[in-house]
C-alpha cells in the first residue's frame, strides 16, 4: 500500500468516461511528441512499405500502390507510456489484416522498422483481427512528419511506442526479438491496462 503524499489531493479533471483511462494515465487534449532522434523526411517517391523475414514471399508496396489499398477510418483512444492518454483520435490507414492477406507465414512475431532506425517488436496476435493499422491520415489530414508521417503503425491497445512512427515495414521473426525501447528498459508487451511500462512490470 502506497503511503499518502502529504497535502496532495490531485487536480482531477472531469473525464467523460473514467473507465477509458488506464491506471496512472491522465487525459490530454494536446498531442505530445516523443522520439529518440531527429524526424526523418523521406520523399514519397522513395517510400515503400515492405513485409519480409520469415515469409514465403516478401511483398512491397510503393506509396501510390499502398495508398490504393483499401483503407479504414477508426476512432480510438491512445495511451503513451509517459502518462498521457488522448481520447477519440481518428485515423485513416490500411489494416494489417489487409496487408497480410497474401502473406504466407508461420512466424508468430514481427519487428516493425522505421526510417531513422527505430524498431519495435510485436506478437502477430497483437496486430491482427482489426487491432492494428498502418495509418497515413490523422484527423482527416495527411499525417505530419512530427507525428510519424507519411505513415505510422497504429496499435492503440498497446502503449504508443509500439505504434512506430515513420514505419517502413514489418519483418516476421521466428522468435520474439526486443526492439528499440524494449532493449532500453521498457516492457516487452506494453499493455496500458496492466501498466506494463517497464521491464519487470
Amino acid at each position, binding site marked *: 500500500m*502506497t*503511503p*499518502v*503524499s*502529504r*497535502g*496532495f*489531493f*490531485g*487536480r*482531477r479533471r472531469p473525464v467523460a468516461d473514467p473507465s477509458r483511462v488506464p*491506471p*496512472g494515465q*491522465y487525459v*490530454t487534449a*494536446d*498531442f*505530445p*511528441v*516523443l*522520439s*529518440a*532522434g*531527429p*524526424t*526523418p523526411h523521406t520523399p514519397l517517391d522513395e517510400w515503400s512499405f515492405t513485409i519480409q523475414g520469415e515469409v514465403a514471399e516478401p511483398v512491397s508496396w510503393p506509396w501510390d500502390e499502398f495508398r490504393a489499398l483499401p483503407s479504414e477510418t477508426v476512432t480510438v483512444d491512445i495511451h503513451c507510456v*509517459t*502518462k498521457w492518454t488522448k481520447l477519440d483520435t481518428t485515423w485513416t490507414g490500411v489494416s494489417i489484416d489487409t496487408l497480410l492477406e497474401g502473406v504466407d507465414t508461420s512466424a508468430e512475431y514481427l519487428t516493425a522498422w522505421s526510417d*531513422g*532506425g527505430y524498431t519495435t517488436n510485436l506478437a502477430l496476435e497483437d496486430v491482427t483481427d482489426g487491432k492494428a493499422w498502418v495509418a497515413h491520415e490523422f484527423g482527416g489530414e495527411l499525417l*505530419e512528419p*512530427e*507525428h510519424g508521417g507519411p505513415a505510422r503503425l497504429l496499435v492503440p491497445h498497446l502503449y504508443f511506442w509500439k505504434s512506430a512512427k515513420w514505419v517502413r515495414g514489418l519483418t516476421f521473426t521466428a522468435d520474439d526479438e526486443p526492439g*528499440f*525501447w524494449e*532493449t*532500453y*528498459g521498457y516492457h516487452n508487451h506494453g499493455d496500458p491496462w496492466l501498466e506494463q511500462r*517497464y521491464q519487470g512490470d
Partner: protein
Amino acid sequence: MVGVLELVEETPQAKSIVLEPRDWPGHRAGQHVDVRLTAPDGYQAQRSYSIASAPEDDHLVLTVQRLADGEVSPYLLDVLGPGDELELRGPIGGYFVWEESLGGPLLLIAGGSGIAPFRSVLRHGVAAHSSIPVRLVYSARSLAEVIYREELMRLADHDGVDVRFTLTREWPEDWTGHRGRIDRELLQDVSWPPSEQPRIYICGPSAFVEAAANTLVGSGHDPSRIRTERFGPTGT
C-alpha cells in the same frame, strides 16, 4: 520512497528537489525517474523528471519547472517540503544517456528546463575527469529563467567545457551572449563540423527539439549521432 532534504529555488518558476535516496541502485547521466503522488482517497498522479545530479553526487536531485495548469509540478513546488517522502521509480531510460565510453566531442542543446539532464552529464564529465570536449548551448526566454546559471558558469571554467546561452525574449542591455532562438548560424558557430562526428543530445520542448534537430540534419550531421528528449505538446 525517498526523503526530501531540501528545495532550492533555481528560478521563480523552478526548484531543485534534493533527495536522500535509500536503496538507490545508481543511475547514468541523462536518465529520468517517475514521481508518483497519492491522494488520501487513493487517487494517483505520475510524471517523469530528468535526474539533474551526477551518478557521483551524494544526493539525488530533480529539477522541476512549473506547468501553469499542471497537477504534479505545482504540488512539488508549492507543497512539498523538507522531511516529506516522495515515491520514485527509476532510474528509467537507457538511450538518452551519456558516459565517457560513448565518446564525443559532445554537443548538448537545451531549451528551458531541458537543461536538467545536461547538468547531470556535465557534472559527471567533471567528476569522471573526462577528457572529452563538451559544448552546451542553452536557450532560455530571459536571464531570470536560466536554471543553474552560476553553476554552469563555474563548469565552463573547466578545460574542455564551453557554455553558451541564448536569450529569446528579453536580455539585459549589456548582454553579450546570443539573442534569439537557436538557428543554423548559432549551431554552426557552436558545433563541431559534421566531419568531426560530434555526439549531439537535444532536450527541451517538442518544437524546440524538432527545430534544432532538423537544422543539424540539414547542416549535414548524421541523424544517428543525434539523440533527443522532448516534453510538452507540439504547439501545432
